[in-house]
């Protein structure tokens, strides 16, 4: 199990990748929320990279989607990419994968923007 961590990587002007490592649940949701909030203040596009996110539950998904909705209201774009198997499964069962929200790769996420 990877310990929880949030990484950031600039992708270009006002474009940021946020990498979630470990497990995204209620125990860390406030940290993620705060980090997304400050990232949203300084960017127009955010890609949340989930390649090292080993676990998510509905609270974790809600944290990402509520940020996405708030960002969209001021024309920001937040998408997810590279979900691990458990994350992909929970997103699919929740009916959240046919939206323009989840992408296989960072490239795919960016090319749609």
């Amino acid at each position: 199990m990877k310990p929880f961590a949030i990484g950031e990587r600039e992708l270009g002007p006002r474009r940021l990748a946020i990498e979630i490592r470990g497990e995204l649940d209620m125990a860390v949701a406030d940290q993620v929320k705060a980090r997304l909030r400050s990232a949203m203040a300084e960017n127009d596009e955010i890609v949340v990279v989930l390649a090292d996110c080993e676990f998510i539950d509905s609270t974790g998904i809600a944290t990402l989607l509520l940020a996405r909705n708030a960002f969209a209201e001021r024309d920001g774009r937040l998408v997810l990419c590279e979900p691990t198997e458990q994350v992909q499964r929970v997103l699919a069962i929740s009916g959240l994968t046919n939206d323009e929200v989840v992408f296989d790769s960072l490239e795919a996420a960016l090319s749609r923007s």
Partner: protein
Amino acid sequence: MRLPARPEAIPTVRREVELHALRLGISDRGLADLKTVVSEACTNVVRYAYEGEEEAGPLEVEFTPVADSVKVVVRDHGCGIAPKPDADPSLHMGLPLIGALSSRFVLSSERGAGTEVEIHVPLAGQPEPAWVVDA
């Protein structure tokens, strides 16, 4: 297992349940499903059961192997299932995910006395539901 119903209890319970399940030779998918349903049930206890009380009450978890499945019971001694108009926004996916990722579950709620959910997860994991396969 009995812990105070606080957010940090949720990963602790997942870890504990994972250790038990691995000893039973659970599949990767079964383990993923088990962790998800346990996380949803415990989150509900932390978020709703003792809302408005000064101290977090107990979160109780029991784990029992049953044939080709594991049975997990998550229990609280809180308010019972009730509307929570002041709660943070949620996706309302907790019980639906528990239903989709288990073979069966039984939720018992007693008003003012608490909630218990008994969840059965096959060691092999659930197949994908039709609407995911179709997509």
